[in-house]
């Protein structure tokens, strides 16, 4: 099984604060990692470093085969990132937004509809401006926008927040499906149950370092 993320003693600094303080971790292809840790432990920071949004200032990091010290832009086209925020153009209609994201990653326009159906967004909402959606509906649009790009590495920051039971079920299915078709999934969440239901591995951070690791599946 090939390694998708490989961190060795990674230190990363944002705003003068060491958000990662010597993190060692390896994630293999096809894993579904549940990232845990108390508030401020560095979960979000870890994902942003993986996505190349925060540079590493010490240690070695390799993501999808790219050395993140040399080139942290190239892996991005293969990574999907869902942050605490939804990254949505609030002025656009739901469908337009997902179609734009689809086109931006070279997918076809038809994929957009499929993705929206996949996250269970009723088509009454497809031509509604995103601004008018409820929190959970927006989260679904964000997930659809990510889905449509078929990334190889999925980074999701509390994707379950704001989703209802049905949404959670669909999301879990989507994650499992992605992993089984060869993608790698890392998601952060404070809910314990998720460790059992979807994740193949639980990783706990503390103070910008690894604290506990249930080990690869």
């Amino acid at each position, binding site marked *: 099984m090939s390694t998708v993320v490989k961190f060795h003693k990674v230190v990363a600094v944002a705003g003068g604060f060491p958000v990662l303080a010597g993190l060692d971790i390896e994630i293999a292809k096809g894993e579904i990692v549940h990232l845990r840790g108390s508030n401020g432990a560095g979960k979000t920071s870890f994902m942003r470093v993986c996505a190349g949004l925060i540079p590493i200032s010490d240690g070695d990091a390799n993501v999808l085969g790219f050395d993140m010290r040399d080139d942290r832009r190239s892996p991005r086209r293969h990574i999907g990132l869902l942050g605490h925020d939804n990254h949505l153009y609030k002025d656009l209609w739901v469908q337009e937004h997902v179609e*734009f994201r689809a086109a*931006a990653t070279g997918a076809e326009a038809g994929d957009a509809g499929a993705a929206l159906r996949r996250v269970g967004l009723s088509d009454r909402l497809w031509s509604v401006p995103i601004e008018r959606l409820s929190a959970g509906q927006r989260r679904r649009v964000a997930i659809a926008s990510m889905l449509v790009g078929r990334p190889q590495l999925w980074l999701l920051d509390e994707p379950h927040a704001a989703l209802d039971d049905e949404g959670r079920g669909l999301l879990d299915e989507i994650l499992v499906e992605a992993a089984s078709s060869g993608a790698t999934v890392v998601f952060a969440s404070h809910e314990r149950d998720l460790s059992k239901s979807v994740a193949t591995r639980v990783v706990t951070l503390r103070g910008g370092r690894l604290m506990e690791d249930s080990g690869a599946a």
Partner: protein
Amino acid sequence: MLREALLIARKDLRVEWRSKVTLGHVAPLALLILVVFAFAFDANARLLELGAGGLYWVAVLFGGTLLIQRAFDVETEDGNFDAFRMSAIGAPSLFLGKSLGVFFQVVLLELVLVPGVVLLYNVRIENWVLLLAAAVGGTLAFSVCGVLWGAMAAGLRVRATLLPLLLVPVLAPVLLAGSRAFDTALGVRAEAGWTWTSLMFVIAAVHTAIGLGTFGFLLEEG
């Protein structure tokens, strides 16, 4: 690259279409500015005629700055700037696409402003070709400079006040060249209209080159 740029531009124009900001707010505002100047100059007809070219470009740049600001606010709200940076689309395409989107919106604005100037300031267009060329050159120069600096301020908490500060010095030559070229086209003053117009194209070209080469750097953090 062109395909991707067009994609971005189309998305921006669609956002514009949904919010109708250019025609609904910025164009009326620019017209208002023309009116206010007329007021401020105490409706001195000769003075207004003389100043027509300059005031036209002041109105364009002012309105255009609002459009640039908005073009990047759309990109940065809801944490969207991360998405912009994560975009699979290359930085040069982003730069071109954004510039194109802004260009079309400013053209829209000018389509309202030209008749405004003619009517309010009582000038006559004597050289259509020059006027058109100058308008296109100035708008191009404005769009690429604006997008370049817009990206520089984007994502910063103080962007709304920083952007104009950075933009004004860079745009001053465009303002000057545009005014002189228009003065010639409107027959207000005999100047080297075509020289000024080419100057604007040169500015546009230089900034396009810089933008294509460096836009990627502007998006990175850390």
